[in-house]
């Protein structure tokens, strides 16, 4: 067993196309996840009518993403309403189903992360802002949210890195992302080592680029202070 550099080089374009698919799934999932998670977290962190958000978070954190993807891509078409309905062009598309499935899971985890961040904001700081005559929406966006975001940043970074690897699940619904591309090379060449190691290196590079991005964000949010502003 050895690393076949010639094979790695010749199959690199194939793996990079896989990596491109990984990113093509990941990026909308991260964006959609944030869009769904913010209102969920607000519901969860405020009194009253919490159960819808709690139910959503509980359900989608509990279901493995692989099963969710199968259910959306293979299960929903069993329903005549979907198959004959106006949304069929969307739900027959594996890419669309992949983005929806992973967004459901990611937004549920992210909502919890944001809720924990919001709850970590000291009530007294919010009261001080209130006593200073700041309006509730100003207090939310300029006081609670920035403090919550700083608290949530570490957990959010973790969640995104986990999401990068979770994208491998969309291979199960026919999308050739990085992991599936490496498997294709393996099935074609019977070299189990070279394509997987190359794929691992590409994942590693992606993850570290994201990590560097977070490090920069953290430095920015801490305004270049050596000590974190919020511990």
């Amino acid at each position, binding site marked *: 067993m050895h690393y076949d550099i010639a094979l790695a080089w010749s199959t690199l374009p194939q793996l990079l196309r896989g990596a491109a698919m990984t990113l093509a799934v990941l990026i909308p999932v991260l964006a959609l996840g944030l869009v769904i998670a913010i209102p969920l977290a607000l519901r969860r962190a405020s009194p009253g009518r919490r159960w819808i958000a709690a139910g959503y978070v509980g359900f989608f954190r509990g279901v493995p993403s692989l099963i969710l993807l199968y259910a959306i891509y293979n299960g929903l078409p069993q329903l005549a309403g979907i198959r004959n309905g106006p949304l069929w062009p969307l739900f027959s598309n594996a890419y669309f189903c992949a983005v929806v499935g992973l967004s459901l899971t990611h937004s549920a985890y992210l909502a919890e992360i944001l809720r924990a961040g919001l709850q970590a904001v*000291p009530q*007294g*700081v919010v*009261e*001080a*802002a*209130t*006593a*200073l*005559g*700041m*309006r509730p929406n*100003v207090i939310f966006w*300029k*006081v609670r949210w*920035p*403090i919550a975001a*700083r608290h949530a940043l570490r957990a959010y970074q973790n969640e995104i890195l986990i999401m990068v690897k979770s994208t491998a699940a969309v291979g199960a619904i026919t999308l050739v992302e990085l992991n599936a591309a490496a498997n294709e090379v393996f099935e074609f060449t019977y070299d189990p080592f070279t394509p997987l190691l190359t794929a691992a290196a590409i994942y590693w590079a992606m993850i570290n680029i994201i990590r560097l991005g977070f490090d920069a964000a953290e430095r920015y*949010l801490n*305004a270049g*202070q050596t*000590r*974190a*502003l*919020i*511990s």
Partner: protein
Amino acid sequence: MTATAPALPIPKAAPTVPTPIITLRGVGKSYGNHQVLHGIDLSIHKGETVVICGPSGSGKSTLIRSIAHLEPHDNGQIIVAGIHLTHEPQSIQDVRRELGMVFQQFNLFPHMTVLGNCTYAPRVALGMSERSATALAMRLLERVRLVDQARKYPSELSGGQQQRVAIARALCMQPRIMLFDEPTSALDPEMVNEVLAVMEELAREGMTMLCVTHELNFARRVAHRCVFLEQGTVNVDAPTSSFFDAPPTPRLAAFLDSRL
């Protein structure tokens, strides 16, 4: 003096009874079925410093917080600078506009610099320009002796410094009344005095102040009047000298004894 000026009749000042700047009449407040404040009557005049003390749990924080409507009162009247505090947003906003509040836990905005802490509310709540807000903030930071720390973040300051920033931040809204809720209780002993000194200066300059504090020496030196709160009622409301030297109730006498 060679010539005596003709004696002009000295215009007799109308005997005005000044209206208090804060009036509480029969203020009550319960949490569930636990009544915390029972029919509190209290008035504070312009320029007065009034200290509130009393055992822990007697309702001091609830009282001071209800004036700023951080806790809505259940019954009775609260009138601040002529404004009746109702539960209407406009009335609440108008009352808060007159008040500056300082808390035990400083409650600075951790993600803003000292200067940002001081200028943010004047900018968003008063619509002040950044320039004039900064000028005002620097003047007030000067007063609490923290100009040199203006660009730092709260986490880089000591507790005493943070509390002085909190005072400056409240003053930046140019309130007519300052409310303090145990401003030195979270501080290390060596930092208590720097905060009390700033408060004393403020009182001497004529600011109207209502302070909850256990610093009885400060009360004796600075307060015009002291109020002893006990189980949600005003047990004593007396001028400082009689409050300390001739405590009118046995309960106050016992409280003072326990603190000597």
